[in-house]
């Protein structure tokens, strides 16, 4: 292989990216050395098993990936803003929309949700960490290895270019001969292992580590949504694992699972992809529903309306989510009987979702509503998501779908579902739980300005796409002529995209501004909220709860505040905590190199990296580390420092 095949060449934009990657890496290395932060980075972050820090790292990665995916989106909008644009060529455009999709779903939405889940769930159920803290660190570093592997593809070897769905036969070695889709199969595989482990970890945590008295039906709604999500994860992700494995065999080892010759079946990829892919949509959106439930209830000063129906509708959604996948390929060639069946199941899933929408509205009804930034995102979510849902029912009708299929109408629909459903939710949750982790709130004025930019620009960007789709503009087209008449609406959409970019820049600026100037919160409960996480001081000490809380009903912390009853009368005793370990980080590095060498089919290095992975795993199973104890005096001191004299 020659050097000009190894690096992507010939694109000024990518040369720019290479230079900036080198400069940023050098700046980070220099900064760490100059400020002598290497030890701090290693001790406090790279080796940590603390669920809160792992959560923070997930969220930082998600924000960086949001930026990366956002730049992809702006590039696509710029290319299609006017007829016959010459900003990107067809190949580059293909790579950009592919990475935009993969990154936004798998490396932005999911890690953002995992981040919030990591920070919040143990606190909400009154636990001191997750069930398997070391496994949690492994999950994070595998996700990180996968994400980095996927991201270097655009400078080394070329990005995947067959869409985020990577349909065969296009994604086969015959039609996509570059290494791009090898990156796809391996990066998703590696981060997928991490996701699966997170699923297992949180199911055990929620089932086994709840505070005394917290029955399943007393759990906060976010914890419920995470439990259901994790169940979907452990049943949906194995399908993706197998599909990606077969894809890897087809592309790297010359097998014929998805080829059109020799008994292969190209359509089986689409089938397996969506058997995972549709539940994946609910993996992203159910925790979002949980976040909105928490926020709407907290800022309406009311308990959540219809708690049991909220739980029941999530259980029904989790079951139905496995019964609808064929609606992603109505036009593939199966008969009316099949399409009819999947039409009905798809429409049925709107029913439990509708139940949830009404429950939120009834929670708001007669509530004492305060319009904070997280509440604004939650309120905007309801109408915007409903537009997404209703257009979803339109798409669910198989006969009508022959008209909408693969048009911008579909693109508009899923952005109308995923942006309010996932992005608004994680941003709302980010604002809501930020003071818990860092001890100060984000600035409300900046937050609200960012909100209005994002909410309005979102509609300006994506509403025109409904009409473009109905006019016949297909998705993934990189150029069109002026006679089509697509120009003006695309230009409008570009304007919206710039507004969205401004909104997200404001959001990041708000983090910077608030870090410097926001007043510090001394109470630990700045929103006057309802669930257990707010009973801890902010920022949360490493052991979470000085004494394990005891719960007598739903919204336990709220009633303990109202009735002036402490959550526990126990004395402080020494606390058992897991010790830090560097092995998960090293495992992540080994997996990264294993993936990278396999992408290029460099066998000897791959085998060496594979053996390294096995050795690290083996040493981990012989670890005899029983953790450490925090003595009582230290706990008392910490609590006094964080809470003042109340202890």
């Amino acid at each position, binding site marked *: 292989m020659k050097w000009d095949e190894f690096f992507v060449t010939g694109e000024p934009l990518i040369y720019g990216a290479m230079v900036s990657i080198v400069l940023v890496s050098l700046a980070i290395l220099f900064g760490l050395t100059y400020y002598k932060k290497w030890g701090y980075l290693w001790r406090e972050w790279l080796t940590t098993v603390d669920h809160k820090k792992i959560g923070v790292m997930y969220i930082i990665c998600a924000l960086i990936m949001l930026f990366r995916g956002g730049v992809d989106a702006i590039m696509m909008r710029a290319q299609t803003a006017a007829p016959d644009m010459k900003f990107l060529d067809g190949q580059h455009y293909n790579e950009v929309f592919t990475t935009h999709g993969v990154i936004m779903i798998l490396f932005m939405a999911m890690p953002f949700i995992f981040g919030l889940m990591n920070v919040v769930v143990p606190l909400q159920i009154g636990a001191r960490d997750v069930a398997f803290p070391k496994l949690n660190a492994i999950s994070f570093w595998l996700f990180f290895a996968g994400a980095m592997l996927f991201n270097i593809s655009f400078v080394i070897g070329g990005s995947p270019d067959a869409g985020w769905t990577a349909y065969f036969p296009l994604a086969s070695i015959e039609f996509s001969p570059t290494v791009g889709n090898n990156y796809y199969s391996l990066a998703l595989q590696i981060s997928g292992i991490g996701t699966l482990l997170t699923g297992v970890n949180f199911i055990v945590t929620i089932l086994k580590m709840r505070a005394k008295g917290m029955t399943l039906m007393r759990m906060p709604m976010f914890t419920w949504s995470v439990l259901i999500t994790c*169940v979907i994860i452990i049943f949906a992700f194995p399908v993706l694992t197998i599909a990606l494995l077969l894809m890897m065999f087809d592309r790297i080892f010359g097998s014929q699972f998805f080829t059109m010759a020799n008994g292969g079946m190209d359509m089986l990829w689409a089938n397996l992809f969506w*058997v995972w892919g549709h539940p994946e949509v609910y993996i992203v959106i159910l925790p979002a529903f949980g976040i909105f439930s928490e926020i709407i209830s907290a800022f309406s000063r009311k308990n959540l309306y219809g708690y049991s129906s909220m739980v029941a509708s999530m259980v029904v959604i989790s079951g139905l989510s*496995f*019964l609808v996948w064929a609606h992603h390929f109505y036009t593939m060639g*199966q008969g009316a009987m099949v399409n009819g069946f999947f039409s009905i199941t798809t429409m049925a899933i709107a029913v439990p979702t509708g139940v949830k929408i009404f429950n939120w509205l009834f929670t708001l009804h007669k509530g004492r509503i305060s319009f904070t930034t997280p509440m604004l995102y939650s309120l905007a979510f309801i109408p915007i998501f409903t537009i997404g849902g209703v257009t979803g029912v339109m798409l669910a009708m198989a006969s009508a779908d022959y008209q909408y299929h693969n048009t911008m109408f579909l693109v508009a629909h899923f952005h109308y579902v995923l942006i309010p459903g996932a992005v608004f939710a994680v941003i709302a949750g980010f604002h809501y739980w930020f003071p818990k982790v860092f001890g100060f709130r984000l600035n409300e004025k900046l937050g609200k300005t960012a909100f209005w930019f994002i909410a309005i620009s979102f509609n300006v960007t994506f509403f025109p796409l409904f009409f473009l789709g109905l006019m016949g503009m297909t998705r993934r087209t990189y150029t069109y002529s002026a006679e089509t008449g697509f120009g003006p609406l695309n230009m409008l959409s570009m304007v919206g995209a710039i507004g969205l970019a401004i909104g997200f820049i404001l959001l990041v600026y708000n983090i910077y501004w608030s870090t410097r100037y926001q007043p510090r919160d001394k109470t630990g409960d700045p929103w006057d909220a309802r669930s257990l996480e707010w009973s801890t001081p902010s920022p949360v000490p490493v052991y979470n709860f000085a004494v394990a809380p005891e719960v007598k009903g739903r919204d336990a912390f709220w009633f303990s505040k109202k009735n002036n009853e402490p959550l526990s009368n126990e004395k402080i005793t020494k606390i058992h905590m897991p010790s830090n370990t560097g092995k998960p980080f090293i495992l992540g590095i080994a997996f990264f190199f294993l993936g990278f060498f396999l992408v290029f089919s460099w066998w000897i290095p791959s085998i060496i990296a594979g053996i390294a992975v096995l050795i690290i795993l083996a040493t981990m199973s012989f670890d005899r580390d029983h953790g450490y104890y925090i003595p009582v005096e230290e706990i008392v001191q910490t609590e006094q420092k964080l809470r003042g004299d109340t202890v």
Partner: protein
Amino acid sequence: MLKQLFPIKHVAGYISSLVLSAVALVVLLDIPAGSKMAILLVTAVLQAAVQLMLFMHVGESEDKKSVYINIAYALFVALVTILGTLFIFVWGWYS
């Protein structure tokens, strides 16, 4: 004491899983495809039962209920995936 030295359940499980694996090799013989599938199906179900009962102790924890619910859900997803795929590509395929 003897029970600790010779865990009969585990040994029985070990031997039966070996036997079941060996029996599954019958499909390499020249027999009709239908009986091959039948043999594979029966040995696979028995094998899964042995693994779950004897090695993973499903019935022995306090919250068996959630374990059984999870297994039932796994079966549901597996059957839906397999039967659904057959439904799409074989039984309901338009030709």
